[in-house]
C-alpha cells in the first residue's frame, strides 16, 4: 500500500517553515556595500553641514538681535544696526501661497490630462514638455516675467483690484501695479507647475487597472472614473507633490529678484507694487559684504537659516507623504 505509507510520512513531517538563510557577504561585497552606504548617507552629511555652518555664521546676528530678529521689518545692517525678517518672510510666504493657489489646480489638471485624457500618441511628447518646463532656467522665467508677462498682466491686475475691492489707487497708473507680489507669484507658479504635474502624474498613472475597469463596468463616464478611482488613489501623492512644490516656491530666488522691487512694510495687498522674499534679499544684498566677519553677512546667513529650516521641514513632510504613496517602490 504505497498510498497509506505516503500519508503516514506526511503526518510526521513538521510544519512547512522556510529555513532561514544566512548569506555571508564576501569581503569585496562588504567594502562595496560600505562605499555605497557612505554615498547614500552623504546627503545627510551635506544637510547636517549646511545646518551647522549656517548656524555658526548666523550666530552673531542672532545674538545681536535676539528675539527682535523675528519682529523687525527693516534690514539696516550698517552702523545703527536694525534688521529682522518680519517683512521679508511673510512677503515670501505670500508669493509662495499665490504660486500654490495657481499651480496646484493647474498642475493636477495637466497631470490628469496627460495620464487620463491625452491621446496615446501625445503622451510622451507632453511628458517631455513638462520635463523641459522644469529644466528652463529660472533666469529665463525672470526675463519672460519681467518683459513679456508684466506689461500684459497689468490690465488683469487693475481689473482685479478695482472690481474685487483689493486695491484701488487713486491715479490708476501702471506703476502702482507693476513689480507686485501677485506677478511674482504668477511667475513662480509656472516654475512649480512641472513639479506638481510630474509627481501627480506618476501617482495617477499607478491607479489600479482593476478598479478603473470596475468603474467603467458599473456604467461610469470617464470623469466619473477619474473622480472615484484616480483622484482618491492619488490623493497622498498630490499632497506630497504640493508640499515639494511649496518648498520650491518658498526658495525661488532669481525670477523673484528680477520681478519685484523691495518693500519693507508687509501688507496683504498683493496687487500693490513692491514685495520681498528671503532668497531675493540674500541675492541682492550679499555683494555688499565681502568681509567674513561683518554683521551684514551674518544677518543674511540668519535669514538663510530660517529659509533653509522652513523649506527642509516642508520638503521632508512632502517627501514622506510621497514615499508612502509610492508603496510599490518601498524598500525592504
Amino acid at each position, binding site marked *: 500500500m504505497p498510498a497509506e505509507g505516503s500519508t503516514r510520512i506526511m503526518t510526521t513531517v513538521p510544519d512547512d517553515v522556510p529555513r532561514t538563510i544566512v548569506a555571508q557577504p564576501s569581503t569585496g561585497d562588504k567594502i562595496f556595500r560600505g562605499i555605497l552606504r557612505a554615498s547614500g548617507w552623504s546627503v545627510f552629511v551635506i544637510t547636517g553641514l549646511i545646518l551647522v555652518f549656517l548656524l555658526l555664521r548666523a550666530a552673531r546676528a542672532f545674538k545681536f538681535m535676539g528675539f527682535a530678529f523675528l519682529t523687525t521689518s527693516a534690514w539696516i545692517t550698517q552702523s545703527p544696526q536694525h534688521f529682522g525678517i518680519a517683512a521679508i518672510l511673510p512677503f515670501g510666504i505670500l508669493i509662495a501661497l499665490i504660486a500654490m493657489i495657481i499651480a496646484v489646480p493647474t498642475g493636477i489638471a495637466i497631470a490628469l490630462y496627460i495620464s487620463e485624457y491625452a491621446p496615446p500618441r501625445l503622451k510622451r511628447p507632453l511628458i517631455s514638455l513638462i520635463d523641459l518646463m522644469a529644466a528652463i532656467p529660472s533666469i529665463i522665467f525672470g526675463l519672460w516675467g519681467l518683459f513679456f508677462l508684466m506689461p500684459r498682466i497689468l490690465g488683469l491686475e487693475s481689473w482685479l483690484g478695482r472690481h474685487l475691492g483689493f486695491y484701488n489707487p487713486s491715479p490708476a497708473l501702471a506703476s502702482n501695479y507693476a513689480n507686485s507680489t501677485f506677478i511674482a507669484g504668477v511667475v513662480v507658479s509656472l516654475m512649480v507647475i512641472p513639479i506638481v504635474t510630474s509627481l501627480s502624474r506618476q501617482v495617477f498613472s499607478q491607479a489600479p487597472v482593476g478598479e478603473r475597469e470596475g468603474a467603467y463596468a458599473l456604467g461610469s463616464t470617464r470623469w466619473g472614473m477619474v473622480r472615484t478611482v484616480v483622484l482618491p488613489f492619488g490623493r497622498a501623492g498630490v499632497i506630497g507633490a504640493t508640499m*515639494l512644490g511649496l518648498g520650491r516656491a518658498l526658495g525661488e530666488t532669481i525670477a523673484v529678484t528680477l520681478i519685484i522691487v523691495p518693500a519693507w512694510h508687509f501688507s496683504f495687498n498683493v496687487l500693490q507694487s513692491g514685495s520681498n522674499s528671503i532668497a531675493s534679499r540674500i541675492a541682492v544684498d550679499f555683494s555688499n559684504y565681502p568681509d567674513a566677519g561683518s554683521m551684514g553677512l551674518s544677518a543674511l546667513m540668519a535669514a538663510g537659516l530660517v529659509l533653509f529650516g522652513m523649506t527642509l521641514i516642508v520638503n521632508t513632510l512632502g517627501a514622506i507623504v510621497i514615499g508612502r504613496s509610492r508603496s510599490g517602490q518601498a524598500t525592504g
Partner: protein
Amino acid sequence: MATDIATAQPATQPPAADAPLRIRNVTAEDLLSLGGAAVGALALDWVLYERILPFSGALGFWVCWYVLFLVAYTSIASMQWDRLAVRDKVVQVALSTFGLLATAIVIDQVAYTLVRGFAAVRHSSFWTQTMAEAGPLSPITVGGIAHALVGTLEMLALSTFMSVPLGIAAAVYLAEVGGRAARPVRTLVDAMTSLPDIIAGLFILAFVVLTIGVPKSGFAASLALAITMLPIVARASETVLRIVPGTLREASYALGGSQWRTVLMVVLPTARSGLATAVVLAMARGIGETAPVLLVAGYSRVMNVNPFANWMTSLPLYTYDEIQSPETADHVRAFGAGFVLIILVLILFTIARRIGGGAPGELTRRQRRRIARQDAAMQRRAGRVTG
C-alpha cells in the same frame, strides 16, 4: 500533450484577423459643438470686452473668452446629452485646455527668448569677445559672451564630474542595498530636489569660501552646483535602476557573481542609457542655475579659463548682471545670453531624450548593426574553417 497544444491553438485562424478594432470616440457633433462654442464665445467677448464692459488688456480678453467658451459649451452640450455626459465632456475640454496652456507657455518662453536674443547672437563679436572691450555705453556690436560661455562649460564639467559618481552611488545604494536604513536617505534625497538653490550657494560661501579659505572662483561655484545636481542625479538614476529586471541579477548570482560584480557588470551596463539620461537631465538643470553661482563665483568681465583662481562668470550670471543695467544694449546682450542658454538646455534635453528612448537593455540601432556585423564575420570565419 501534443494533441492538447494542437487543440488549444488552432492553426487554421489566420493571425491577421486579430487586428484590434479602432474605436473612434470623437464624433462630428463633438467637434461642431466645440467649434460653435469657441466662435460664439469669441464674438460675444469681442462685443462685451472694452466696448460694453470696462475691461482692458490682452490677457484679460482671453481669460474672459475662455470663461464664456466654457459657459457656451456647457449650454450647447446640455441641449444634446444627459447630465452625466455633459459633465464628462466639459471636464474633458477644461483639462485639455490646461494641457494646451502648458504647451503654449513653454513654447512662448522659448520663442520669446530666442526672438529677442537673436538681435545679439547675429553679431559674430557677441560670440568671440568678452566684456573687457565694452564700456557701459558700448553698442551691441562690442562685447560678448565668450568668457561666460567658457565659464559655464567649465563649471558644468566640474560639477558633473563631482555630482554624478556620488549621485549614482547613492542611487545604487537605494536600489541595490536598500533595507530599512535606506528609507530616510530616499526621503532626504526627495526633499533635497526642491531645496532652495540659493541655500547651496550660501552654504558654500559659509563653509568653503569663508571657513576653509578657497577663494571665490569657478571651482567654488561648481561645488554649489554639484549640491543642487546631486539629488536630481540620485533620484532619476534610482528610478532607472529599479526597472532593471531582477532575473538579470539572479542570473549573475547563479553564475557565482558577487554583489559588486553583479552591480558593475550587469545592473549598471543594462541601465546605461537611462543613467545617461539622468545625468544629462541633471546637467540641463545645473547649467541654468543662477543663485548658487551668484554667491560664490564672483563676477568677471574678462576671460578667465582657470576655474581654481580668480572670479568667473557663467551665462545665467551674465544675463542677471546685464539685465540690471539700464542700457538697451545690455538688455539685448542679456537676451542674447538667454538665447545661448536656452539652446544649450534644448541640446542637452534632446540628447537625453535620444539616448533615453529605449527600455533598459534595449539596443540602439547602431548597437544592433554592430552585433549583426560581428555575427556575419563569425559566420564567414566558420565557413572558411569548414570549407
